């Protein structure tokens, strides 16, 4: 099937159309249809994974004219490479879980809720597979709408503020990106580029001063989405107020849009500017790691704590991505997936206890382990994954990021960032301890039921992935490696020899003799 990507992307829309014809009273059917749609989407995405050839090319490409008027030519140009592949898979994988997670949590306006979820899925998938800048922008913006409603309608007490903040904050950024996009296009037309296709722009030579401005505009939009310090304040609000599925999707996928944007657009398009702003971005990333960790430590609301932990984790991702070597970028990409899985799982967990107790204050809990052993086990595993314990997915990503950035010019940033692993342990474990350990003294907590079958079914795939990706991450890495190398080759302004100096570990010392320093792969001091 040559248009499998389109089928996958727009399958949720089909689900929406179906949902429209189901009366809103039959909630079970609505949930079922939404569930089936997301599962079908996941099923459709599987052949993409299996059929993906491990090389740097874009695959499953569809490229047809879309808009052509005046100076512009936009094309419906989609495709997938090693960088977007896993993010697409993550999206299709998380969505059924998200739907399932709200089976009982959302009792009101089920129909609208499911419509929002499905629209969101199309938006996210579309953004990940777009190879046309304009198309990307459309999907990028479209995502905002369902998320806005999810926060605003099904959110908590302060939901309207959070929803508006989320929407307008993101919109300010993306609007500036739009201007940069247009400007870039006109630069391209002068160089003979005839449409918005990303691949054309990769070859465009832009003078550094212009790059600076364009990069800033792109980076600003993406930084808001990531979110990077100090543009992060919408996140705790949005997360805290969003319903569980909203938080899960927001954390697992939407935030990745920002980092993905850097890897896919900002960095390869503007290499000189990337080089120039690397210290700034790395500084912000590191500040984000430490700052968010410190702030997370003193949170009173579990969900807010997890939200701040997201900021810290995404700081790691940014650091890795901007180290611009294979370890760092691979680590960053992996960490995106890891964060999607483990933070998604954390939000689900918070959702479980919120559903039971209708509070998220840490002080309202304590000793839950006794009452909910299965929950405790899963919570523990996810917590450990979140703090990057070896054997879980979180470790692989974090380690590669740190070793990558240590090897690059961001050495000192890596050192500071490494201390983030300590803080992560502090705030996560302290939270875990206060919620799960101690005396089960609150009578309301003494009657809590452990996870039911549905909830276990939600968590099991995540837990399995946590371990699979921790123990055997190589299949994930292998698929993305060629694309990662391509990105690095584009985004680095120094000549890169990274790929060629792989020395097998078993190499004999005499085979790998000491080389004069001049021939070393350049790792700027």
């Amino acid at each position, binding site marked *: 099937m040559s248009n499998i990507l389109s089928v996958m992307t727009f399958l949720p829309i089909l689900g929406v159309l179906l949902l429209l014809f189901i009366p809103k009273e039959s909630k079970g059917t609505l949930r079922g249809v939404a569930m089936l749609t997301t599962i079908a989407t996941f099923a459709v995405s599987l052949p993409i994974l299996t059929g993906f050839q491990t090389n740097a090319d874009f695959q499953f490409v569809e490229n047809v004219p879309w808009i052509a008027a005046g100076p512009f030519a936009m094309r419906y140009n989609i495709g997938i490479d090693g960088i977007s592949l896993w993010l697409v898979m993550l999206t299709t994988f998380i969505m059924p879980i998200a739907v399932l997670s709200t089976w009982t949590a959302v009792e009101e306006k089920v129909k609208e809720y499911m419509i929002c979820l499905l629209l969101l899925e199309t938006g996210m998938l579309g953004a990940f597979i777009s190879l046309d800048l304009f198309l990307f922008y459309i999907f990028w913006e479209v995502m905002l709408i369902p998320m806005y409603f999810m926060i605003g309608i099904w959110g908590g007490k302060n939901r309207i503020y959070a929803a508006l903040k989320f929407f307008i904050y993101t919109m300010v950024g993306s609007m500036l990106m739009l201007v940069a996009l247009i400007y870039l296009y006109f630069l391209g037309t002068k160089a003979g580029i005839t449409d918005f296709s990303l691949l054309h722009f990769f070859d465009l030579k832009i003078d550094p001063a212009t790059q600076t401005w364009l990069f800033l505009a792109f980076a600003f939009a993406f930084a808001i989405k990531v979110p990077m310090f100090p543009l992060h304040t919408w996140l705790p609000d949005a997360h805290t107020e969003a319903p569980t599925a909203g938080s899960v999707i927001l954390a697992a996928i939407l935030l990745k849009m920002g980092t993905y944007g850097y890897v896919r657009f900002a960095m390869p398009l503007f290499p000189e500017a990337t080089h120039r702003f690397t210290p700034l971005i790395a500084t912000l990333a590191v500040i984000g790691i430490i700052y968010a960790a410190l702030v997370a430590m003193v949170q009173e609301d579990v969900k807010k704590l997890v939200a701040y932990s997201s900021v810290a984790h995404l700081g790691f991702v940014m650091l890795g991505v901007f180290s611009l070597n294979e370890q760092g970028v691979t680590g960053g990409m992996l960490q995106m997936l890891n964060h999607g899985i483990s933070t998604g799982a954390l939000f689900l967990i918070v959702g479980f206890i919120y559903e039971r107790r209708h509070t998220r204050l840490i002080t309202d809990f304590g000793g839950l382990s006794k009452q909910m052993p299965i929950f405790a086990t899963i919570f523990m595993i996810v917590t450990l994954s979140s703090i990057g314990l070896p054997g879980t997915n979180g470790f692989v990503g974090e380690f590669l990021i740190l070793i*990558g950035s240590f090897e690059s010019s961001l050495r000192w940033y*890596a050192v500071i960032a490494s201390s983030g692993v300590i803080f992560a342990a502090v705030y996560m474990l302290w939270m875990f301890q206060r919620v799960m350990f101690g005396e089960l003294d609150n009578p309301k907590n003494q009657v809590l039921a452990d996870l039911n079958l549905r909830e276990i079914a939600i968590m099991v795939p995540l837990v399995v992935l946590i371990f699979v990706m921790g123990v055997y991450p190589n299949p994930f890495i292998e698929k993305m490696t060629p694309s990662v190398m391509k990105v690095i080759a584009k985004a680095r302004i120094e000549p890169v020899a990274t790929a060629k100096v792989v020395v097998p570990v078993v190499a004999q010392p005499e085979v790998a003799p*000491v080389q004069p320093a001049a021939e070393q792969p350049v790792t700027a001091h």
Partner: protein
Amino acid sequence: MFDNVWLIPLFPLIGFLINGLLGKKIKNETVIGSIGAFAVLCSFIVSVMTFLKLIGLPAEERVINVKIFTWITAGHFNADVAFLIDPLSCLMLLVVTGIGFLIHVYSIGYMHGEEGFYRFFAYLNLFVFSMLLLVTGNNLLLMFVGWEGVGLCSYLLIGYYFHKKSAGDAGKKAFVMNRVGDFGFLLGTFTLFWYMGQTNNIWTIQFTELAKNANLLPTGGVVTVITLCFFLGATGKSAQIPLYTWLPDAMEGPTPVSALIHAATMVTAGVYMIGRMSYLFIRSPETMTVVALVGGCTALFAATIGTAQNDIKRVLAYSTVSQLGYMFLAMGVGAFTAGIFHLMTHAFFKACLFLGSGAVIHSMHGALHHVHSHDDAQDMRNMGGLRKHMPLTFLTFLIATIAIAGIPGFSGFFSKDEILWQAFSNPLHGDLNIVLWGMGACAALLTAFYMFRLVFMTFFGTCRIKEGAEKHLHESPMVIVIPLLVLALLSILGGYLGLPKLIGDLFGGVPNYLDQYLEPVFANANQYMLAHVHPEQHSHTLEWGMMAASVVIALIGISIAALLYLINPELPKKFTTAFPALHRAVYNKWYIDELYDFMIVNPCKALGRFLWKGFDVLVVDGVVNGVASTVMAFGGVIRYMQSGLIYNYAWSMALGVVAIVAYYVFK
């Protein structure tokens, strides 16, 4: 030939999975316990087989890498899941699985009737698995997996009684402090990987590769940075200054855990790691000095605290910290074999001590439970005279105590004396040697003192337990006692593996087996030492003298203990009243925990709170919301221009016309 080594960690992993996933369903304690113990037993058997195979090989071939699968590859970074079988790791395998098996057996009896029995065995198996990874991992990263894994198990097991807040706190403290160490470990790994790659184009984190290329490393400089980072990792894991405070708190966990994790195996990981990378450490004289000093200080410092504790397990905990200090002292003076030797002997006698104390506590607990007393079953002030009731436990406990105190003939004497001698005579630290020896000797004195204090308070004198409870005190079941006996035996015999040459010569040239066995592992370091420093020759007389001195020191310590706690039990009280401040300081562990709280924990929390409420909400969000509300306020003002009056509107238009025209006319 060594293809089946992956079985060694696999068995405990299977045990963990079975007990962890199905344990709740199995319910039968015997089955659960047997599965757990059997898994470790299988590992032990395979380890023994591996060991036998290994010593069957010529010495120079005793380094085998067994690759299972490629774990992570990214760029020139590569990490395999692969095992390194060499004398050092084999020794550790035996210690871990051997003692681990005994403690598993012991636990079946000790943990009888505890809630979450299956959980305990699952964790214990998981711990053994992690520890085996740690010791067999053939690269830094896999070692780190085990490194963090044992930390995790430690966290889980310390927090086993999670309903107790103190247990949860202790677990968290252990984990976080370990993480601080891990931070160092990671940085060390990064720097080493980067430096080797950068300067020599050797991108590897594999131990054998590193060892092979160790000669490319400079002396000092970046190696100092690397080794100090690793050493930070070691201080965290092995509870050295400044990261030792978690270990005494870790006694919140069940006693078998204390024996296995917090005495015999996990806490020695730091020592093992330095041994594993001896070729690296030896290349940095600065680091060696730091290691030796930290070790010496810790040995002495922890010993002082140990003298004033009343909780039986806490005494042992501080003793562990102190003994670990010895091991680091050994490593720091380049006596790697001696350090590993002490690691091994310490594993025997300290496991024996902990299990013995566990038996005591168990018995005390049962007795106190009978009379419905809430007295602390671990407080030595409630004990006394227990030897009548628990003769076997007393016997084994006494043997182990003698061993730790350094009485000749018992294992502790050989290893400790070796360390003291090396501290005194090593060629690395020059004038510092006497200080190092002094610290070690003082610590030995204190060790002998507080250990016998413990024995006297617990097993001698009058029974101070609550009225009526005494008759309920009884010897432990066989499943508890047998491991004690085995360990006690090992505490005696273990020392004969590493007889000093001096003594060996007396018995017709019995070699120092351990030295020979471990020689290939430390060959690189030793060669480097030979090439770079010139050892002074010390006369045998001096060596004999020093040996005698350490025996005398131990005896003095024992005598003081006997005087204070056996002959004249009123003396200690007088002593404490005479020096109240000193006693309070020692009793409160020199207020180090409070100091950390004051210096690090509280400022961090305060900073976090400030950043949240003061910066995040006020400044960052304040700017965002400020912009928004400024615009909104502006809108509120502008709308009042819209007065609703036609002539105002007309004015606006007319002025607009005038302005536009004027602009162009006068431009």
